[in-house]
């Protein structure tokens, strides 16, 4: 199915009229982000993992580490590979099969934010005295889709990377350079903020219904110093220069708040409907 869902005309009008008055269907203000719940270390078979709930959207990111070859143009650096699977369990709009453009866009936008901010210290992932490097596999699985996968995925991935142990002892066993396990070195904490244009208003952290009727979408990823690290305009629709400036401003401000949650010892946790995941 396409990214466009059929939505009742009456609902479309309702959402549009509310937004003209600065209101949203779930009671939020246009620049308000839904409650975020971050639960790290939920998968024992993964080297790192986190479940994130962003309102009704829920997503799991898992990290696996393997030994592999570096890219020919950066032989002293480890490798990161990001994949997203839009499994049909998460939404009636997702279909099984090979990754479609939508899943690839999600993985690549999250990847860019992490990669371009230098979040992972890839130089620390070279195996000393060997041609090999550690490969970081980042896998994203939405399990409940209510809009804005980009931001939920970025939070989940950066949190999962923060709790990733590199199983170096096992991976280098028997080789010349026997290493000890170590914590994956994280240098920066990129956060993305996504908005969609409904009528003349930029609406942050859209729900599924809002995405269904929206025009253009813009994702802006910023770092701790307030610099821009990745951007993506998506969907059919137009943005003004003012819209873009506004989104950059929002991303820096909201990014600070989310980064605070990420770094907090006690993660904000909406009472879970089910035990561990």
């Amino acid at each position, binding site marked *: 199915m396409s990214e466009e869902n059929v939505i009742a005309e009456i609902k479309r009008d309702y959402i549009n009229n509310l937004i003209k008055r600065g209101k949203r269907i779930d009671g939020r203000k246009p620049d308000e982000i839904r409650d975020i719940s971050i639960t790290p270390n*939920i998968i024992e*078979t993964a080297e790192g993992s986190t479940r994130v709930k962003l309102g009704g959207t829920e997503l799991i990111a*898992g990290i696996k580490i393997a030994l592999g070859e570096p890219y020919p143009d950066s032989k002293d650096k480890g490798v990161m590979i990001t994949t997203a699977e839009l499994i049909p369990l998460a939404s009636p709009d997702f279909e099984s099969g090979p990754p479609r453009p939508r899943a690839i866009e999600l993985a690549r936008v999250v990847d860019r934010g992490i990669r371009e901010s230098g979040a992972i210290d890839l130089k620390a992932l070279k195996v000393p005295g060997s041609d090999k490097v550690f490969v970081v*596999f980042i*896998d994203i699985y939405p*399990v*409940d889709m209510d809009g804005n996968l980009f931001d939920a995925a970025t939070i989940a991935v950066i949190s999962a990377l923060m709790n990733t142990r590199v199983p170096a002892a096992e991976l280098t066993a028997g080789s010349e350079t026997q290493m000890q396990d170590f914590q994956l070195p994280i240098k920066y904490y990129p956060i993305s903020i996504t908005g969609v244009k409904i009528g003349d208003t930029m609406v942050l952290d859209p729900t599924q219904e809002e995405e269904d009727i929206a025009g253009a979408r813009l994702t802006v990823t910023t770092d701790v110093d307030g610099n821009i690290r990745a951007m993506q305009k998506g969907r059919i629709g137009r943005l003004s220069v003012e819209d873009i400036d506004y989104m950059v401003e929002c991303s820096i401000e909201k990014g600070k708040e989310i980064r605070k949650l990420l770094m907090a010892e006690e993660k904000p946790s909406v009472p879970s409907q089910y*035990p561990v*995941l």
Partner: protein
Amino acid sequence: MNKEVKLLREDGLRLDGRRYDELRPIKIEAGVLNRADGSAYLEWGSNKVLAAIYGPRELHPRHMQNSMKAIVRCKYSMASFSVPDRKRPGPDRRSTEISKVIGEALESVIFTEQFPRTVVDVFIEVFQADAGTRVAGLTAASVALADAGVPMKALITACAAGKVEDTVVLDLGKLEDNAGQADLPMAIIPTTGEIVLMQMDGHLTPAEFRKARDMAVNACYQIYEMQKDALKRRYAAE
């Protein structure tokens, strides 16, 4: 692999301290997802599984429709990080076969004739695997179907038994599965005792088979109570 993995301890208990006929701890939660029509989350030992149901809904393409009944379409898959060595995402021969036998087991209790030309989609995603994922997935999917309100003759319950060090044991753990001599996953309709899924590999004498089968069937009745309990908790009056 070590030369000789010792699966039974001196005191007759298994490596994880279970008796030969003891299940691993099981937790079931019904109705955990918003988007799906029905869902269930299940932990069984270290297995972590989500099941979601969509439907009965219109089936596309139309030539796949059956004008007499609903099609039951099951997809079992494992997350890339659910196993020690990263699994490549996407279907493989193993998960395709498991999807087929689970879907057939579920179809045997669904009133498919009430929903001609539709499809009931069953999605099972294993996020953490520890042997016995197909019985865990099927047990969760059955609860999810009930949560979705899909008309069914009964719930289905699944469990495996097997053989380690010449002893028939219930519900093999990962080490037991890897180094064991036989595995017998089964699913039954607890209300009738009929069997709707059975696979086996390894080596069992006919006597051992009957013992393993009875052990798995008996355990299914324990798990059936947990399934019903999960649904009652979900739909209990406040």
